[in-house]
């Protein structure tokens, strides 16, 4: 045992030295404080509960969470080093900034809609009772949280594609999440991209029904994830790896139906400041503790947005390596 412990200690010391060289922090300073911007949502759950689970502490990290209302703000803060990491989704705003030379990359994925068989997807395109299929939405008003260029618009685009439609075929209306079911009810819109718990609300109130099978429409796309700026990508890479290790540690608790795990539900509800039943009764997102990124999603997002005038400032799609850095995740998960 002692023989085994010695090399481990030596390796630990070497790693610490390496980290010191890279981060420039003294060896005695064992914790590093990171500013992390986040959009609140259960699809990003592991990043939020990793603190309460002690995963960040175990990696020598102290996290200062900064709530973000608009993803564009997070991208701006990340590009100007006001944030170290952003827990949210990539968007056209990120793509345009990267095209201009900003160093922003997706380094890990979090929740996806690839839920187990028999479990409904936590989001989807819902139509009013008069609408029977996606095809019937041509020329009709469809509500969306945000505008074209956001990650939610990508999910809507995928759902419309299932009926052979694109953004140009419908009239998009920007609405808040909680305004969508009332708008479907009073005829303000004919369809809406809903997220749990609004999906259940629409069904319970008998005002709308799912127009597409979201799991089929979205496929293996994952938009929820972690995005780093220059600091964690380059100058403090080791800290970035530690942050991902902590997230992988928390994601393990999210495998399967994590809504039945009372401790996780309580931690998530406390963080998101919502009642526990909102979490336990809400939609199920699937998590993979390897935090694997689907690079194809970012390419597909660009392909979709470039077709809409005025969304992307460039025409030649950015290659995946400009938007994704998978090496930190591989290092983190391999070493976890």
């Amino acid at each position, binding site marked *: 045992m002692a023989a085994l412990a010695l090399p481990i200690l030596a390796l630990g010391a070497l790693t610490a030295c390496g980290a010191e060289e890279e981060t420039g922090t003294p060896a005695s300073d064992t914790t590093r404080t990171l500013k992390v911007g986040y959009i609140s949502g259960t699809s990003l759950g592991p990043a939020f509960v990793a603190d309460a689970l002690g995963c960040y502490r175990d990696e020598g990290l102290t996290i200062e969470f900064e709530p973000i209302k*608009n*993803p*564009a703000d997070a*991208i*701006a803060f990340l*590009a*100007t080093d006001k944030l170290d990491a952003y827990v949210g989704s990539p*968007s*056209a*705003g*990120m*793509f*345009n*900034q990267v095209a*201009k*030379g*900003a160093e922003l990359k997706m380094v890990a994925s979090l929740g996806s809609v690839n839920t187990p068989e028999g479990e409904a997807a936590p989001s989807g395109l819902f139509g009013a009772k008069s609408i029977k299929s996606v095809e019937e939405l041509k020329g009709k*008003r469809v509500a969306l949280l*945000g*505008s074209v*260029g*956001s990650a939610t618009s990508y999910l809507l685009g995928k759902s419309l594609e299932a009926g052979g439609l694109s953004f140009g075929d419908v009239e*998009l*209306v*920007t*609405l808040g999440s909680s*305004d969508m079911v*009332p*708008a479907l009810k*009073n005829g*303000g*819109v004919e369809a809406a991209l809903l997220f749990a718990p609004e999906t259940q609300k629409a069904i319970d109130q008998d005002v709308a029904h799912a127009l597409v099978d979201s799991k089929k429409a979205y496929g293996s796309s994952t938009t929820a994830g972690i995005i780093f700026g220059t600091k964690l990508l380059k100058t403090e890479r080791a800290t970035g790896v530690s942050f991902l290790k902590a997230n992988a540690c928390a994601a393990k608790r999210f495998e399967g139906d994590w809504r039945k795990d009372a401790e996780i539900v309580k931690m998530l509800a406390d963080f998101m400041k919502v009642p526990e039943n909102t979490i336990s009764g809400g939609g199920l997102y699937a998590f993979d503790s390897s935090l694997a990124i689907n690079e194809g999603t970012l390419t597909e997002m660009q392909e979709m947005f470039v077709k809409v*005038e*005025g*969304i992307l*400032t460039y025409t030649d799609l950015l290659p995946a390596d400009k938007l994704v850095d998978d090496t930190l995740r591989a290092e983190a998960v391999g070493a976890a």
Partner: protein
Amino acid sequence: MSPVTRDQEAVESTGTWRTIAPGPAELDPRGYARRRTLMERGLAILVPVALISLWQLLAGAGVLESNYFPPPSDIAASWADLLASGVYQESVLASLSRIVSGYLLGTSCAVALGMVIGSVRLLRVALEPTISALYTVPKLAILPLLLLIFGLGETSKILLVALTCFFVVLINTIDAVSSVSPRYHDVGRSCGASRWSTLVHITLPAALPQTLTGMRIASGLAVIVIVGAEFVAADAGLGFLVWNSWNLGVPEHMYVGIVSISLIGVIVGLVLRGVEWLLTPWNR
């Protein structure tokens, strides 16, 4: 001509005389006024030009983060792009039509109602507290209610502008009408003026300057409130252009929107000053 002595206090305290020679203002009052006006106008132009040049220099030198604070030359180029694509014209027209429709609706109702309330003391006493309370409600806060009642179309946004303008003009009109000197009314009565003649020839001219000031303030508020509304509930307009450009990571377009909004504010203000100048010759 002997020099003019003016400083009597200095004379009394020190016992000496101080003489002041006539300056350029006294020697050539017209020329002095002309030069002064030229200098003031020059300064009004030079200050913004200097600020824009400084911005260009700082952005060019890399002191400012050019991705988010692009140099004015980039913003000008983006302006040209937006004009060429037609997006700019569409945005300006969408915002202007909402501002003009809402403004005309809100101010015309407010002037008519303000004249009545201001003229009838009992009405004024009964309604003023309610009007004051409603005036302070942030109008953007009731946008979701307007959307719920009138739907997602133009009506809710036009009504929001109208409501914003209404209360400012109403309060100014009531105040202006109720402040008209009773002596004017006495003169009117002694000349046998009818109620209508009193309103048209006495109350309206006397109340007009303050009412027009209220209308000028309301025009600025109309621009502010429509931009706020377009942030959250529109798919066209300068507010939408600003918000959407920020979301899409294209700040150059955002600045075009911001500059255009302030230009509209300035132009509307100037137009209303012109209207004021035309309608109130006695107040020049």
